[in-house]
């Protein structure tokens, strides 16, 4: 089991249904800061034309997660399925994980006085038999597809085999598992929506990277 999510981000209309669904499903705190998932928005002018784009994102559940590496008490740990979870009873709020995360995925839960982040709805949905995360299920334009990278016949891997995709900040070498599908029919839009040093992958190129990172850290995966 190696859970990941693929994003067809060109569908996103920035309605923020995913943000609300996540907060309701996982009983997250209210407050602008307390976002487990979010939709980022950029506005720029490209050749005299306005270009506004929407980027949904969340914790990447990196295979080579720096946040797990730096946590002194193993509060930030891996569980089976390649998920990064936080055991909030162990968190001493050193905030090292927040500093280590390149994706701004973590925040402090004021009630539990511990660090919190997206859990791929593992404890609230996946472990209870649902096959979708709350954010995936609620999305009007179905941006997300949650699935298992180890399942060659599953919808997720089938999709990744068909499309080119990229990950965020691949230079940080965290091997993140949020795969952003490159829009394939409007190259103008696609190129405007990514940076110059965004590396595009195919499934064949990404699979060995995933396997290598998994092999490196799989000993740390605990039973959930």
């Amino acid at each position: 089991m190696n859970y990941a999510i693929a994003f067809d981000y060109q569908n996103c209309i920035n309605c923020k249904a995913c943000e609300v669904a996540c907060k309701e499903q996982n009983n997250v705190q209210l407050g602008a800061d307390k976002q487990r998932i979010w939709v980022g928005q950029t506005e720029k002018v490209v050749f005299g034309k306005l270009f506004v784009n929407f980027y949904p994102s969340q914790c990447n559940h990196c295979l080579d997660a720096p946040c797990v590496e730096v946590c002194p008490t193993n509060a930030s740990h891996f569980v089976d399925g390649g998920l990064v979870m936080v055991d909030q009873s162990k968190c001493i709020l050193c905030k090292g994980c927040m500093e280590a995360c390149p994706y701004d995925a973590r925040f402090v839960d004021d009630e539990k006085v511990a660090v919190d982040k997206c859990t791929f709805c593992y404890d609230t949905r996946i472990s209870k038999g649902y096959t979708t995360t709350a954010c995936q299920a609620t999305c009007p334009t179905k941006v997300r597809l949650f699935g298992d990278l180890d399942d060659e016949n599953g919808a997720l891997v089938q999709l990744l085999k068909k499309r080119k995709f990229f990950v965020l900040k691949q230079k940080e070498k965290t091997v993140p598992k949020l795969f952003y599908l490159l829009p394939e029919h409007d190259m103008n839009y696609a190129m405007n929506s990514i940076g110059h040093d965004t590396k595009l992958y195919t499934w064949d190129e990404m699979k060995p990277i995933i396997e290598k990172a998994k092999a490196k850290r799989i000993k740390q995966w605990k039973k959930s």
Partner: protein
Amino acid sequence: MNVEISRRRFLQGSVALTVLGGVSLSSDNLFSNEKKKNASNSKSEDVPFLCGMCVNKCAGFAHVEDGIVKKLNPNPYFPKSRNMLCPRGNAGIHTLYDPDRLKYPLVRIGERGDGKYKRVSWDEAYDAILHGTDKFPGILKILDEEKDNRATIGYCNGEGLSKEGFEDLMGQKIGTPNYVDEISICLETTLAGYFNTIGAYGEADLNNADYLIIAGANRAEAIITPDTMDMFKRNRGRGLKIVALDPRYTNTVANADRWYAINPGTDLAFVLALTYVAIKEELYDKDFIAKHGVGFEDYKNHVLSNGYTPEWASKITGIPAEEIYKTAREFMTAKSPIYYQGRRSVFSKNDFQLRRAMAIFQGLSGNLDKKGGIIFGQKIALPKEDINAPMYAQVQERFDVKSVAIPTGKTGSWILFRNMVVEGKTPYPVRAMFMRKHNPLSGVPNTTKTVEFLKKMDLNVMIDILPSDTAMFCDVILPEASYLERESPVTSFGFLEPAVALRKAAVKPLYETKPPEVIYKELAEKLSKPLWENTLKYDEDVQDDTKGMKPEELEQYYKENGFDLADIWEKSVEEQNKEKIVKTFGEEAWKILEEKGIYYPNIEKYHKKINDNEYEYYPDDKKFYTTKKDKLKVVINFKNLAKKGVDPMPTWHADYAFEVPKGKFRLVTGRHAQFTQSGTTNNIMLRDLIRENYLWINSEVAKQKGIKFADIVEVTSSVGKIRIKAFPTLRIAPNQVFLLHGFGGSSKEMEFAYGHGANDAMIIEDKIEPIYGAAVMNETNVDIRKV
């Protein structure tokens, strides 16, 4: 350095003591390490519901654990909502559990608007409506003084599944014609335009269309099911080319393939120019028009002789002429083009003609009543009960629509009605307003006048779930149960993939609230006999009929002629629903409907799961693409209109031009996906997403005026002024401004809505368009100054 820590302090009040005492406000106690309750210990169920946060009625399942609704999940069986819930849908829990909700009936003891109310029982509240208190007269006294002229009562109702029930109560049973429907501050002209041209509003088949012109409809932020879901999965070269017209760069424009920043209110010129190109270059579907068009030759001459060329249009709209040529040619040569109907409040006074022109243009392409076009679909018929409506001789006519071209007897015109009452120009006094699920102080332009209007009433009654701005001007407030707490009349949704949907109650009504049908029944029961006595006193026809009758005969007359106001609700909603479904489809269907919330014939055979993100509701060959066939008519030259002084064909007039005096700005209105007008502004989960509304002002203009982000500016129009924070952006033209509708609540009882943001109804001038009297929202010019 932060000066103040404005949080709940350790020593302040009982709040902190509860934390120390271990009975924390959250489910996790600071000092305990207990994990959350085991799923196996708690009782949980999934109840099908229909969302009531906006007009779409998306279907979902409410996940209820131990009697508390914890999550709202999408329902994969409803074709219309396509297995999703938008942000408001998810946040419905916070409307249900809104701490500011009306919990028990209230009766006014202070002055209107000061918020002083007394908690009373339901009986006392009904009694106050009937007999009044020392602060206000009851309906009985009013009708007595007005000699049973039922038209002295006005009523209004917001959209919903129980709207018809209220219309039945007030319009049919109590008998007043003065219904100010919210449609006159919304899409009245759009509906009228399409109905009068192609016979129905129709639905755009966006799953199969290949070219879309979407003008002034912001589907990414004003979500309509299933259009929003279909549209944005096929854009960017995936099969649907989207050309968006909008004065500002909305999220829809961001997802479109082309954007024309059209001048507000000039769409008609654009459509006429497109029509010109289609006609001149003979690109239109000649066979289709020959078969279905009515009066095409007149229109052809009209358009060509008036010279509605793209060059002419480009001066008015601001869109370059070559773009108009290009768009027209692309549209007419596309296989399945759609000029999206749109549905929103009226932008400008030519809106009716605009929608007619759009419908005609769609007709010219021939893409109607078939796959990929605007389809009419099929509705699953459900049995409709007959309402035994009594006849009142004393009731007088509506007065508000006398000055409009096409008076709609049922729905009237909010602005005309209100203004005539305020200015004392009514032929008889209007003395009572019965309102339900409506907030005119926010919804109707020119709030100041609406306040005057409400103050002029002798009796104001409100049925609502929140203490809205308008509720604070009412005399009796009846708390209603929200959509998650009640079962509503079963409804049929038509078009391409018709289905019947049922809303079941997820939890019992909280506090002392009651479902609307129960309120109708109880109110009707309370008012029935006293009002009947009043009718007997003044109504000559009834007096004639009942002359010399004995009490039992009188009672029979009373019942048979519909004067028993409560007879519609003899059976409960639940019973009526079951009856209807079992009668039409059988017991099995009722079981499916109760379990899945949705039913349509052959649902078990047709409904398939393709993957987690996609479902098939009807197989393609079973969808209702073509239903009108030969009966379809495209009425191009609507001769009857001329009799009423309305252009029978869309015509441009010079005063339709977009003009903004120098130094002023045109105010445009619009939506964000996170709010439904003013109904959701107290929902804390949604407020979490947008704290307050800001004024969109062009960055260059802002720089010139020295206005930076979040600076407070004062916006003044001829009817009012507001203060709001500024949001300089390039997404709006230099001579226009925009602010999100629904904010700036004035009701102190809504603690999240109060004081945050500004109310655009304060500054929008109460202009109307001349054909239906619908409120025109985008014709106000304002001044901006930095404070």
